[in-house]
């Protein structure tokens, strides 16, 4: 472990650490744009200048490996001057776009100017004009005038996705990023280029102009878009959820996440949600108090068991809920009802094992591994064919289905609902509002569930890693988690703790300057 002295602070770092990382580790501010720990070094922004003892020339910290006894500083006047001028050079051709730029508030140029810049601009000549509002496919918008040519996005597409869409064309101060002939940047990881863009050159079409970033609060969570389980950061305010960005987790996703995962906030927002408990069937739905609905549903299930000497109930589970919820549901059937009719609904069997080699998996349930191991440990071996047989022969009286959080990844949803409708009564628990459920012809209770945003729990990803989900806020007051629901259904509890709409942070300035590094 080499010991280094940075700005007089002595710290110990891992061998092979880059000096810039050592500075960050020491808690010292160091300006930079082009350096990104997840990408190969480019060394082109020339901002992370440091003075290394024994070297008369200033060096860039992002291309210097620490050595034992190295002593470096970046708080000398010489370095400060270099950084100030480095920023000056970055800004002379940068447009004064901040009022309409989505990046404003979390912009590298703004943050670092406030930290290291603060000079009087002296450029009085015309700026170089470049192209603005160039659409690059479905998700990304390019403004090459704002670009500072740090080449992060180019390195991302050439080294991480290896799709090579983006390049820097022309040379000198006319250099521009772009794709060949504005071809769309439609790979499944394109939005990472927006994340790593330190300025507003690449912006997200989905998020564009919807909120100013300082109005957004953020919290850490786990992506439920597929079984990889990337660590994410959710951005929200009183108007709902607005975007999702990846957070660094070296064990799972590194610095990245896929574009599909970024859409999961859409089915958390109230407009996509089942807002209250309902009872009825097609054409005749009644809104019910959640506790009452649960009590009724529970009685119906228990009645089906009581009335018959062999089980007339069945439970259908998906890999979309947390381990705790699934366990509660399974325990309810095994111990309370003494039924082993528990089935795993596999939404896309032919794609379950697919993997794109980077992050995205064909199994689009966050907790399939957890569900499988739970069923295996409880020695539940019922197959889907058995359920189909029982339903077709109308053997099942009450069917309880813990449905999907994201109906979009269940292509067989309508077909499966037709099958479920063969039961006499259906208890449908789901966080999503599914139009097909409203068409069900059998007596149905619709119980609103909580989304991943609103509950604590454990998810087991495809690697078998247990990851903890933390509750961030409540959006739907009536929604319950499966374990809360089961507690009432089994008769152990009389009521559920009613949630309160908690997404009531005022849209004030959360001063994102402190939100994090670039």
């Amino acid at each position, binding site marked *: 472990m080499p010991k280094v002295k940075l700005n007089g602070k002595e710290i110990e770092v891992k061998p092979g650490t880059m000096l810039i990382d050592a500075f960050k580790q020491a808690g010292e501010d160091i300006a930079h744009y082009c350096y990104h720990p997840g990408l190969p070094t480019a060394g082109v922004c020339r901002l992370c200048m440091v003075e290394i003892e024994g070297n008369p020339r200033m060096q860039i910290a992002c291309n210097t490996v620490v050595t034992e006894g190295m002593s470096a500083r970046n708080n000398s006047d010489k370095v400060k001057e270099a950084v100030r001028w480095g920023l000056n050079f970055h800004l002379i051709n940068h447009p*004064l776009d*901040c*009022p*309409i730029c989505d990046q404003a508030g979390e912009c590298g140029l703004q943050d670092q100017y406030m930290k290291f810049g603060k000079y009087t601009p002296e450029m009085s000549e015309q700026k170089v*004009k470049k192209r*603005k509002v160039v659409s690059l496919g479905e998700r990304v918008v390019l403004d090459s005038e704002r670009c500072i040519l740090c080449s992060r996005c180019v390195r991302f597409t050439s080294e991480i996705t290896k799709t090579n869409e983006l390049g820097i064309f022309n040379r000198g101060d006319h250099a521009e990023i772009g794709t060949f002939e504005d071809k769309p940047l439609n790979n499944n990881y394109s939005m990472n280029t927006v994340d790593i863009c330190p300025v507003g050159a690449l912006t997200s079409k989905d998020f564009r*102009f919807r909120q100013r970033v300082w*109005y957004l609060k953020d919290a850490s969570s786990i992506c439920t878009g597929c079984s990889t389980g990337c660590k994410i950061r959710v951005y929200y305010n009183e108007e709902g959820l607005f975007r999702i960005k990846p957070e660094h987790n070296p064990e799972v996703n590194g610095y990245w996440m896929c574009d599909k995962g970024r859409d999961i906030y859409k089915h958390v927002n109230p407009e996509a949600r089942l807002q209250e408990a309902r009872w009825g069937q097609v054409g005749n739905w009644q809104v019910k108090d959640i506790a009452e609905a649960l009590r009724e549903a529970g009685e119906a299930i228990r009645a089906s068991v009581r009335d018959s000497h062999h089980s007339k109930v069945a439970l259908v589970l998906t890999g979309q809920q947390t381990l705790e919820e699934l366990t509660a549901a399974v325990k309810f059937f095994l111990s309370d009802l003494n039924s082993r009719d528990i089935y795993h609904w596999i939404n896309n069997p032919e794609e379950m094992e697919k993997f794109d080699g980077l992050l995205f998996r064909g199994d689009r349930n966050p907790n399939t591994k957890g569900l499988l191991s739970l069923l295996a440990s409880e020695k539940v071996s019922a197959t889907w064919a058995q359920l189909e047989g029982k339903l077709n022969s109308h053997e099942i009286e009450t069917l309880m289905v813990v449905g999907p959080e994201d109906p979009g990844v269940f292509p067989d949803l309508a077909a499966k609902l037709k099958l479920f409708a063969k039961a006499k009564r259906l208890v449908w628990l789901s966080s999503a509002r599914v139009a097909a459920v409203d068409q069900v012809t059998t007596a149905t209770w619709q119980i609103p569930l909580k989304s991943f945003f609103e509950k604590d729990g454990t998810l087991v990803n495809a690697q078998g890693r247990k990851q903890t989900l933390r509750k961030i806020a409540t959006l739907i007051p009536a929604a319950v988690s499966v374990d809360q629901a089961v507690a009432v259904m089994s008769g152990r509890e009389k009521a559920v703790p009613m949630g309160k709409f908690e997404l009531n942070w005022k849209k*004030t300035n959360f001063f994102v300057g402190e939100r994090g590094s670039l």
Partner: protein
Amino acid sequence: MSIVNKPGAISTWYLPGILSGLWLTLKYMIRNLFDKKKMPTLNYPEEVYQYGPRFKGNHILTVKKDGSIRCTACMLCATNCPAQCISIVAAESADQRVEKYPIKYEIDILRCVFCGYCEEACPVDAVRMGPEWQTAGLNGSSFSYDIQHLAYRPQLKGGILSRVDDEERHKFGI
């Protein structure tokens, strides 16, 4: 050094205070009765006081030369507003040179404290505080000013031109 004059014994009696107050009222009543010209109050609404030209009253959204709204929906005014009375919804403009513009810009004038911070925060001279101050209305909704009212109300005679012009800015290479 400040000198504190402790109240004397006489001022602890309330009667002299009441009498001197009543005397003042009586004095002005008599004066106003006989010399109406010197009366400082106005008979509003028959008479209206003329404020100075720099008076900061009701908001105006300025317009560009082509009559479209100058505001770029940067939300700096809304962010800066201590009363949180401005709400803006931005949208993407079909004109690429404009890029972003507000489809909703509302000021809840009942919450407004007329501090002028919005005007100060605006980077493009899009919101100004004008000379009007009569904000009477019949119901709650008439105190919520929308774009139509803020930019194009009849008093503004077609809109106030913003000092910041995009064409000029492009010419100077900003």
